């Protein structure tokens, strides 16, 4: 017997979510993409999965880089496994290298004699989506860029919601002057062109991941705060809150134990849409060159490359393809969550 039992209402909501096939499959695909991105080192990497050298096995994927001398090469920097693989094959001494399906990392450039990147998609070279303008594999950049973008928007979501939920709740619950002050502040804040401010800030100091999250959060808390305020405002007037107050519950208890659980639906419904807007915002900033510093793999930077080098259509096509799949999946999840939590059974006429 499981000790942890879900509330039957919650179970019904989950069942309803699963019955919306579009949203459910989007969730499956999206989870798969997340897992694949987390394990990216195992299938998109310029380090080998397994190296068999002189009766020993090496697993270089994770951990400290192995210098070339480990495998009897004449250099002390990290081994070039693609090259090693070719050498082993040529020597034919029973040594072998097992490379990942995509044998390129997000930073490794594939340089060739007499030819200049970008290279078109090439099954044989295992550049499945081609290379960018400096010879880095597009698929590798896409996968690692996705990983950064998704954690960026999740981090942004946590920060935004921490501010938004607490402030919005307080505004809606306490009302009065406190509410009025923040209402004006929000009105001013939401009118400041936030991309301009972010561009100004990030053109002075090149931001790193967390600084960029914080800068974006300065302007990102408004939406959820406003929604939470409205919802709390409505909940506050309900009889159960009055009953709790009559029983002598403190403000903190009323908010945390009674109002917040009743607003979870709103928070959950908003989350997928915040994730997709986070990804879009990071991509836009990277496209303009004000996001994460190069050579961080990013979709926006790839789009900028594709825009300046338009004959390399595969760059833009693969980024847009990846964006469509990701964002549409997230949107479908959001729609399904909304429908599961708040079923509107429409009447249709024949």
């Amino acid at each position: 017997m499981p000790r942890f039992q879900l509330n039957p209402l919650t179970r019904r909501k989950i069942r309803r979510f699963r019955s919306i096939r579009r949203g459910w499959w989007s969730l499956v695909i999206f989870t798969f993409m997340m897992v694949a991105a987390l394990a990216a080192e195992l299938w998109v990497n310029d380090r080998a999965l397994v190296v068999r050298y002189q009766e020993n096995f090496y697993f270089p994927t994770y951990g400290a880089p192995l210098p070339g001398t480990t495998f009897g090469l004449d250099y002390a920097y990290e081994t070039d496994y693609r090259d090693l693989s070719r050498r082993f094959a040529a020597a034919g001494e029973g040594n072998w290298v097992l490379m990942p399906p995509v044998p390129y990392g997000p930073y490794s450039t594939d340089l060739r004699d007499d030819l200049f990147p970008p290279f078109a998609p090439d099954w044989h070279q295992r550049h499945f989506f081609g290379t960018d303008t400096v010879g880095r594999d597009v698929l590798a950049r896409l996968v690692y860029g996705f990983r950064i973008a998704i954690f960026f928007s999740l981090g942004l979501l946590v920060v935004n919601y921490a501010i938004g939920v607490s402030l919005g709740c307080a505004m809606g619950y306490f009302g009065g002057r406190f509410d009025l002050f923040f209402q004006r502040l929000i009105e001013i804040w939401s009118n400041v062109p936030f991309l301009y401010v972010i561009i100004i800030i990030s053109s002075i100091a090149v931001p790193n991941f967390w600084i960029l999250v914080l800068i974006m959060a300065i302007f990102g808390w408004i939406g959820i705060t406003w929604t939470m305020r409205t919802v709390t405002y409505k909940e506050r007037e309900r009889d159960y809150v009055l009953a709790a107050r009559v029983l002598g519950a403190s403000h903190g208890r009323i908010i945390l134990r009674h109002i917040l659980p009743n607003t979870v639906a709103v928070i959950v419904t908003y989350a997928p849409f915040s994730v997709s807007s986070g990804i879009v915002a990071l991509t836009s900033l990277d496209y303009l060159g004000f996001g994460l510093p190069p050579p961080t793999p990013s979709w926006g930077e790839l789009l900028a490359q594709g825009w300046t080098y338009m004959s390399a259509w595969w760059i833009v096509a693969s980024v847009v393809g990846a964006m469509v799949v990701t964002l549409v999946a997230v949107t479908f999840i959001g729609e399904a969550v909304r429908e599961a939590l708040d079923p509107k059974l429409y009447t249709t006429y024949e």
Partner: protein
Amino acid sequence: MTAYFIRRLLLIIPTFLGITVMVFVITRMVPGGPIERIIVQARQMQSSLGMAAGAAEQRQPLSDDQIARLKAYYGFDKPVLVSYGQWLAKVLRGDLGTSTRYYDPVWRMIAERVPISLYFGILTLLMVYGVCIPLGIAKALRHKSGFDNTTSVVVFVGYAVPGWVIGVLLLTLLASVWEVFPLGGLTSDNFPDMPLDEQIMDILWHTVLPLTAYVAGSFAVMTMLMKNTLMDNLAADYVRTAVAKGLPFRRAVFRHALRNSLIPIATSFGNNVSVVVSGSFLIEKVFNINGMGLLGYESVVERDYPVVLGILVVSSLLFLVGNILSDLCVAVVDPRVRFE
């Protein structure tokens, strides 16, 4: 209700002051303003002239006196709030100052760009409302049919992917690979030499892709809004009553349900004022269109603060007025709404 709108109009003032103070202070605190730029230029000039100056002089090409004069010229010699006051006084007299980059009056720079943004804005507006309302109605009436599902896919892709990304894709495929449309800009190089009819064709030819990108952005929200509200209304009792009384279904939809469904569309109508004029700088950047959005973006990147603030004045006023216009629209179309 008049009192309500007068109060709303008056509330524009503190909000407007708040916005401009914030951006003004930010532009002041940030390094890299016009004076730093002039110093850098002077230093480059010095080194290109090959002046055999001492190391100390090399570091600071301008004398303290010159820097003080520059600061006075740009208003950097006074405390932030004092120079904000001076700036505001000039704005109230209708003077937005001169660009620190091009030394043109900001008003003229904005006025040159507005028609371009207006052109795209109005076309987008016509396209969005012209397509979304009929499409939304059709989707609501054929809910869960094949037509509804296929259009939903298009709508969701348009909703999920931002317009400028669609723009980059269109540009790459249709302009670069297949060469059907031009690579951005609004006119061809030989535009001045063309006869009038060719000029019109040329502009239209350049308009197609950016317009598609613009429409793609706002298209989805509008269509879904129209569809969902119409479906809400179709399920409402008054429509059922009308049908039960023997009204043909079409009449019930168009005479009763549709009119009420247009109310939510009206709530966002006023915001079009600012969208139409300011445009989207990302789309303008992608297509290299010299509209308001691109002007704002370039002035931010180049630290041309008078232009940044000038655009901020125009766009925030439009936005605030647009919000009130939206409320007014709602009050006009929905007699149940009372503002107090």
